[in-house]
């Protein structure tokens, strides 16, 4: 009898494993575990055995019943899972519900990035007014009236000739030089204005980024190292930089910094006007006249300054072809 029971169990388990659908499984349950099922038949036989055998066989019979029940339960679970996959169609490619997100303006993104780079070098970020006096926009910066460089910076006047919209962020430099005691390192970004009719290459307003430092012991090597650190961080470690002599009235010695043209790899193309290099920023040691006028001895105190236009950099970084699009609400996010 024990052998018979064992065979029954093996058969049942094999059939359960084979069962391909929930209906087959139900049939199996009825045929094995139902009231008139095979397992119950053995229970009916149980009374015919003597007491010792009855106890042993009873245990075995209960175990067998339990094993079959569990096997059916497991199988059922598997089958229903498969079923649900087949029944409910799932399309992960369906678009999500629209969620309105905001964006920073490309110029803000660039300014933030630059501020963060200079923060590592100990520069503090400051600001200054846009409506500016002739004194801070020109005079202090070694640009007296009738200075030739003034004709290149046609100002928008609020009140001629003393009140202008600042023509460069250097006006903040002149304010800081008068207001703060060295040592200091500052960076400034902001709107500047020139007398221009808006066209494909010019706006009457543009953004500049400016930095300057005043501290005993600063040198051209510090300036060059600072700018190269910045350019590599901002434009990429693989970019090449060229420092050359260039005159600016606010500095002496003056230095122009160019970056390799990434379009032609320095071979010369229309973007770089065949030069292989793109002018990036102007810089130099703060002019001795400026320092002397503010009461510093040039033997004791030195400083450097640098400045660059931001709009071209922003256009280049974000692939904006027309300068007018930057500040006329044309940018679609």
């Amino acid at each position, binding site marked *: 009898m024990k052998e018979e029971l064992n065979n029954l169990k093996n058969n049942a388990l094999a059939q359960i494993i084979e069962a391909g659908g929930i209906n087959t499984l139900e049939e199996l349950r009825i045929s094995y575990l139902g009231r008139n099922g095979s397992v119950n038949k053995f229970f009916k036989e149980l009374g015919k055995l003597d007491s010792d055998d009855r106890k042993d066989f009873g245990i075995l019979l209960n175990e067998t019943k339990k094993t079959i029940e569990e096997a059916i339960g497991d199988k059922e679970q598997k089958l229903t899972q498969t079923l649900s996959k087949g029944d409910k169609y799932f399309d992960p490619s369906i678009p999500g519900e629209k969620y309105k997100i*905001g*964006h*920073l*303006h490309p110029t*803000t993104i660039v300014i*933030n990035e630059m501020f963060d780079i200079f923060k590592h070098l*100990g520069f503090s*970020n*400051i*600001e200054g007014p*846009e409506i500016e006096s002739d004194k801070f926009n020109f005079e202090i910066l070694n640009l007296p009236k*009738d200075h*030739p460089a003034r*004709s*290149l910076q046609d100002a*928008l*006047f*609020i009140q*001629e000739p003393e009140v202008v919209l600042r023509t460069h962020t250097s006006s903040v430099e002149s304010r800081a030089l008068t207001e703060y005691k060295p*040592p200091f*390192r500052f960076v400034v970004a902001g*709107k500047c204005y020139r007398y221009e*009719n*808006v066209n494909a290459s010019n*706006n*009457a*307003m543009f953004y500049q980024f400016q930095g300057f430092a005043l*501290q005993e*012991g600063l*040198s*051209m*090597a*510090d300036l*060059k*190292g*600072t700018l*190269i*650190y910045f350019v590599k961080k901002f434009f990429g470690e693989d970019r090449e930089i*060229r*420092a*050359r*002599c*260039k*005159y600016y009235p606010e500095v*002496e*010695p*003056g230095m122009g910094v160019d970056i390799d043209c990434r379009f032609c790899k320095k071979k010369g193309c229309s973007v770089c*006007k*065949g*030069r292989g290099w793109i002018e990036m920023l102007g810089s130099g*040691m703060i*002019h*001795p*006249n400026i320092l002397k006028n503010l009461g510093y001895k*040039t033997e004791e105190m*030195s400083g450097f300054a640098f400045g660059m236009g931001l709009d071209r950099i922003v256009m280049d970084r974000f692939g904006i072809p027309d300068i007018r699009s930057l*500040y*006329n*609400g044309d940018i*679609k996010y």
Partner: protein
Amino acid sequence: MRIPIEWLNEYVKIPKNISVLTDGLTMAGHMLDKIDNTKYGTVIDLELRGNRADCYSILGIAREVSAIFKTPLTHPKTDTLHKTIKKISGLFLKADSNYVKRVMMVKINNVKITKSPDWLKNRLSAYGIEPLNNIVDLTNYVMLETGEPMHAFDADRIGGDVFIRIAKKGEKIITFQNKTIVLTDDDLVWSNNKNILSVAGAIGSKEFSITDNTQNIILEAASYEQANIRRTIYRHNLLTDAGIRHEKKLDPTLVEEGIRRYLYLIKNEGWGEMGGELFDFYPSPITSKRITLYYDYINRLSGFEIDKKISVDVLRRLNMKIVGNTKDSIQVIPPSYRTDIESKEDLVEEILRIVGYDKIPNNVLSLEIPPDKMPEYIEQERSVKNILISLGFEEVISIPFTAPKYQPLNSSLSQRTNPVIVANRPSPEIEEMRMNMLPSLVEPMQKTINEHGEISKLFEVGKIYSQKSEKYTEYRAAGILYWEKDGMSYRKFKGKLEAFFTILNIADVKYEESECQILTESFKILLENNIVGIGGNYKGAYFAEIYLDNLLGKSRITKVNLWPKHPPQIEDMTIKIPRGVMAGEVMQKIKSSSTLVSEVELKDTYNISYTFRISYQHPEKTLTNKEVEKARNSISIKLKNDLNLTLDA
């Protein structure tokens, strides 16, 4: 300036490879603009800087090439026969202005006017000046060669008396290009007894210019006060080859070099006879500058050690005289044509640019880091932008002027009344500065609407400007504009504003109705009784402007709330609120009626029925129904007593 290579090569040996030449010049301060291959040979176009008046000449560039590449310079031949005198027979000159620094004149008789020979024509053409006749072409030639502009008059037409004076306002001159110029009393001119002969340093009159019939000429070269010339040439748009040289600081010594070069060439070509007298008016001759330069200073400003011998060698190559030499310093006299050199820093630049800026090491700032001086509001302004981004708004940056069609918006929405006006507007769009942010945001929003968009959420953080009796003020502001095609409401917009203030850790912001001609549902935003913003409905879009100056600058501590240990009891309460009673006030009353009310939230409104969700909570225990009921009664009493409202059953 355009430099024909063939011409340059006459005075200095140049590197075979043109790019070696142009790289050298670029690094030393004269950036190559472009290389032009013409039928007259290669021409390099250099972007010269305004301080180097001496470089606006072939010779000037030749001197630079000589210094950079250590190659000898050949000077062009000049007349050495004629002595200068103070008076010239048959010609009287009166220089009646301090603007005249030096004038030389000479009469050349029996000139032969012809077409110029090829060497002359080709060089002028390569540079970009149209050849005319030999006499005029030669003045241009010598100008390009030496840098000294000069002018030839028809001697028989001008007569015996010549004046250099300030023009009378309204005097006229017709230039040889047939352009009439009406002069001002700030323009320096040459004249005879009757007529204006030329605008000094810029352009000559047609009437007295050289023609095919000219027999005798007066040749002049001069040096003027550069600022006056600059004002004149920009005023009358006379950016001629002479003008752009005279508006820079030209060396008065050049006047004589130029004249003598001209005399040499005219004699050599046999184009005229020199009168024999060379007039020179030079009231205060320049004196040479002497600059003391310490070697130690060179190293300190450069940031690296430059060998003493190298410094001295470089300065000598640049024709500087070293007149004193100690262990620590040198005395340097720059050549007279280097009008730009005034200080020891200028000399350091000279040394560096010839040694090469590429030799300057890249120091990472090694000095002590100065204390941070950034004002608090800058970082806060940055977070204001980030907050608005997180609320789904797009940043706009605009040119802060108000176009004419938006000017009514500019004046009637602002707390201030007088806009800042540009005195010299380039166009009507660049004239009136904005006094509020709405005009800057309406235009970009309109783009979204025009393109059948569903939603436009914009902001700008920037400045607004105003003036009062010539005092100009700039305020920091955040403008916010929100438009949705469907389902737009004040509540929806205000939710964003509330979120904005919450992230900024600013509580207790109040909104009050205000008067406005432009906006409906107009409100002002108050913080501690100060107006920190305004807003309202503009043609279906909601606008708010936050005055950041009144908000930022103070640091605010972020408070963190933890989940309560004891859960709240929550119930909804519907109240009929008649017009005239503010929902905000009702909520305030509910909140203040019992310490157990931890939160009041508006869930729903239907006509005048408002459903509030009220949370009752105690920090240390779970409330019993009895305690909640007591709190509910307090609310009921408070609403009844203070506002005469009853709770719906």
